């Protein structure tokens, strides 16, 4: 029990004392999660839009597959991406293994189903008349897609927040593809797992609180943007 309190205390000590190891891990975490969420959204939102907006034979099957991929285990993603970026894999020349961009690839694979499934859902939930309204005003193609996404912006934001939460808290892929190498690829989560494995529960908790703090700041900013919609 006591390690929970100790953890909170420790978190403050680490942050305030400017512990270099912790700050390096924080920085790595921010770097990986920013890269990952960026590419996840760039790929995921248009895909989710298409899946939610268009009707094609087999659409239900594709939706089911995406929904199933929400259960993609980190180990599978790790192994799969490892197969590609390991030095004997097809992308071995790019030297991505045990680097932060390498981790980001795995996180993108992991988070894509979340963004695709949730944004497709949000688009489908939009009233049909939204699409008709945009069409009658002459929207088409990319502009149509963007504006439908905009009309469903709170849903998209939620998809992004959920994916970000998944990415920043993820440890399996980060360990497998990043290797938890000190000063280089050690993120808060891998450090946390490492400390816990060593039995340093309080330290693990401390890192966990720091992570939640970051998540709270990021999501707090998003929530603030959202609050702008007011009483609606």
């Amino acid at each position, binding site marked *: 029990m006591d390690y929970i309190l100790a953890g909170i205390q420790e978190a403050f000590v680490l942050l305030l004392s400017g512990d270099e190891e912790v700050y390096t891990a924080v920085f790595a975490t921010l770097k990986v999660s920013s890269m990952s969420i960026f590419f996840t959204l760039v790929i995921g939102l248009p895909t989710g839009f298409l899946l939610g907006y268009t009707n094609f034979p087999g659409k239900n099957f594709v939706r089911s597959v995406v929904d199933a991929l929400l259960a993609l285990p980190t180990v599978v993603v790790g192994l799969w991406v490892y197969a590609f970026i390991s030095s004997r894999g097809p992308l071995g020349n790019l030297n991505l293994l045990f680097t932060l961009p390498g981790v980001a690839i795995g996180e993108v694979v992991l988070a894509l189903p979340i963004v695709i499934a949730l944004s497709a859902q949000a688009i489908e939930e939009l*009233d049909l*008349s*939204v699409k*008709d*309204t*945009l*069409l*009658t*005003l*002459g*929207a*088409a*193609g990319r*502009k149509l897609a963007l*504006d439908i996404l*905009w*009309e469903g*912006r709170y849903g998209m934001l939620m998809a992004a927040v959920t994916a970000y939460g998944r990415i920043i808290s993820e440890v399996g892929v980060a360990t497998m593809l990043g290797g938890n190498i000190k000063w280089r690829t050690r993120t808060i989560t891998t450090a946390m797992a490492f400390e816990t494995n060593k039995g340093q529960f309080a330290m693990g908790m401390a890192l966990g609180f720091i992570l939640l703090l970051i998540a709270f700041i990021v999501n707090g900013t998003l929530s603030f943007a959202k609050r702008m919609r*007011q009483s*609606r």
Partner: protein
Amino acid sequence: MLYELKNIKRYYNGRCALSINHLAIEGGQIYALVGPNGSGKTTLLRILAFLDEPTMGEVFYNGSLVAPKMMPFLRREVTMLLQDSRLLTRKVKDNVAYGLKLRGMDPLSMKHRVNEALEMVGLSPKEFANRKWYELSGGEAQRVALASRLVLRPKVLLLDEPTANVDAVSESLINDAVVRAKEEWKTTIIVVSHNLLWLYSVADEVLTLWGGRIIQQGPENIIPGPWKKLETGLYCKTLRDGQKIFVSGEPSESKVISISPSEILLASHGEKSSARNVLRGFVTQMTYHNGDQVRVHVSVGDITLVAFLTKDAVMDLNLHPGMDIYVIFKASAAKWL
């Protein structure tokens, strides 16, 4: 010819909602599209707006057959005010400006056009331009939606119930706006409305839909069944007050007849007439139309019949609201729909 529809059918889950053998629509006119609920008006408008495709049949626009991949381009010049009109989740001015922005208009002329459009529907830009989409009453929202279509100065403007929820003053403003669109911008306009009074005051031509089909008669004097077959071969409907209507011909599936207002005579005395139907009623409403025509509503039993009279005929009969009058028409004047 702007539109030509050939052998159009539109099914919803196996139910046929629209079935038009041939329909031609000329440019630069104001068409009224009337018909009871569920008669297929919205269905037709959506096809004309290139929002939906007919289940079968061909749509020609400007002489060429419309293929699905052309529709996004055509939607640039054809715009529709939806029956269930809604606003985009942005400010009023951004709603109105949306279509212009799409078309790449520069911000300065855009602002001018947006204000003009708001004024056309009776909303002061100063008061409304910066409101959020949800800060509006029902009629205000409806008018913003209309403004965002008017502002486009489209080639074709399709309006589905533009005056629903709208007050009387705005109604006449919309009337002006529609006429102005036709005259200044040569816009072709097709309006659906149940507000017949308003509709007749703007429309050049009236199309009537009934059960998904276009019928020749005007929308008025449509009398539903049940009809009882008599030994004489005529069909008879008994009104609530006991009076009877007799019609000839063979009943259609719908069991509904229509009688053109021009086939109906009014007389102050009902004794002598060769016509089969002489019904007693009283005048409820008289409305003046351009060309010295007066539309007279007569309440007969539980239905209302409409007749068109000249102004002179009205004066000769000394017709006034509340006056008892006889409605006279032949059994063969009825058309089975």
